């Protein structure tokens, strides 16, 4: 299991477009990816679930990556987060 923390940078928070791109990115890897904010969890491959977390600018989320390829998936996701969120 790989885990990393991320503080939302985008001023609109985790808005629809970014959430959509994130879901696409998650679906392109084989690991199971979970987001967690303030005790609430969301399956990162589900758009509605991700949006329901309602992550705003400055809020912290924990990203958990699990699976046989978690090493490289986690690296790819971190890059995605750096570029988009």
């Amino acid at each position, binding site marked *: 299991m790989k885990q990393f923390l991320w503080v939302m940078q985008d001023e609109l928070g985790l808005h*629809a477009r970014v959430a*959509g791109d994130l879901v696409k990115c998650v679906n392109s890897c084989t690991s199971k990816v979970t987001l967690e904010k303030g005790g609430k969890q969301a399956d990162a491959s*589900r*758009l*509605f679930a991700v*949006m329901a977390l*309602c992550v705003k600018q400055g809020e912290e989320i924990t990203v958990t990556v699990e699976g046989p390829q978690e090493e490289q998936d986690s690296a790819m996701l971190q890059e995605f987060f750096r570029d988009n969120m």
Partner: protein
Amino acid sequence: MRKIRGVATSGGVACGLVHFVYDPVAAPVFCKAADVQQELARVELAWETAREELDLLCGIAGREIGGECEKIFEIHRMMLDDEDYSEAVRRVILEQGACAEFAVRRATIQLGAMFSGMEDAYMRARIADVQDIGRRLLHALNPALTVQPPLPEGCVAAAPYFTPSQILQLCGDGVRGFLAQEGSSKSHAAILARMLDVPAVTALGASYSRLYDGGMVIADGFTGDIILDPDDRALAAYREYAKRPAVREETLRQLCSLPARTRGGRRVGILANIWKTSDLPLVVSSGAEGVGLFRTESLFRNRTEPPGEEEQLRIYRSAARQLGDHPMTVRTASLGAHSQVSCIPYEEEPNPVMGVRGIRFSLEHPDLFSAQLRALLRAAADFPVGLTFPMVTGVEELRRAKELLHHAMEELRDRNVPFCENIRVGVMVDTPAAALIAEALAREVDFFDVGTNGLTQFALAADRANPALTTLYDFHHPAVLELVKRAVFAAKNAGIPAIICGDAAADPLMLGFFLSLGVEALSVAPSSVLELRRAVRSME
């Protein structure tokens, strides 16, 4: 006269009569399923249809309006694919034994409620996206449920909130402004209204109930102020405002009024393509010298019955009137599986792009085709209207189309209705076959429209809608240029004009090539007219 205030959402001032928009998702009525398995299968099918529609819409939105707009419908596509949604619908069917319509409404309202409970205004605005998908599914299940009676052109539409698809459709119908009880400037609908340059005021809250159907309003999308039942002074002030061109338009107009002439003094006609009549103000303000291609499929969309002769006549007349003395060329509707117009039954096809579309579909449906021809013949009696046939691959097809045109004339003559006997008749050279037999086709018509999109797609065997082929789909390819050259030379030899249409026409890098062939006119999107004029004026 009264004043209310909402949130300024899309700039501009709209004046017109209020008309309420019907909301098909609201208030679901429970209805028991006769056969649960059958309802589950219907839901499956509706999902498939909605998916296909959204894929199509993404493409159209991207091409016609711009990247951001395409993203909006791409997100709809992803929401649709989210299993949480389809599972919720299936659960309602299985647990309550409900029909598919009720289940979709119920699940849509529940998902929407998830967003409406959020404190963040941006997230709350997503509720309209969920509703939009719900409507799409309902429409797929039962088109009669979601039919919006057409709003009168020039009215101001009012609704609890608007969905992105509604904005697209209503702008196409000629609605002048939007008033919403809820919503925000951050909704996708708001983004679209701004892109389409239509004023909108949202978040009217309790004041929304002051609006009434048929009441006159002046809505200021810059300030959020709305005047109900304006008095003469307010109306006079509005008319004054409407006359005063904005600063941005003023600078554009300076370029508009300069002729499209090369430095060497050669005149090049620049016309505009349109998809719907609401594009016409853009055409006029761009200074285009008419409409080179009016694609009429949009007249058949979002309705249960195809438009008849009289309705089409009204549309063509009102469009031509807006263009003044400038000509308007109407492409006869290219229907069938390729354009997926729901009011006309069509056969599913393995490859609709190369299937029964364009003139092929028209010749198989002579009643539909003739209604459009009669409307065009009648409009041409008073205005410089011409017509052109798409996807012609043989002289025989063209002759059959012209035969139907003559039949239509006889019918009108029998009915004693005025029409234009020598209407301008053209043909789209949009297939390699048409380009290769251009000399024979040229003897049959008054002009050519060289459709470079079709030529590129078919010459290179590269579906333009397939993103994997974008590098192959290239109108600079020598094979495409050769076909264009053949078409233009055949037209020149026959003494008829050839107008270049499609994406290549707007490419400044292609302009030199077209001018070297002796092309005299190009037809491009209204937003490309000024750019192209600038390019022409910089050519030797």
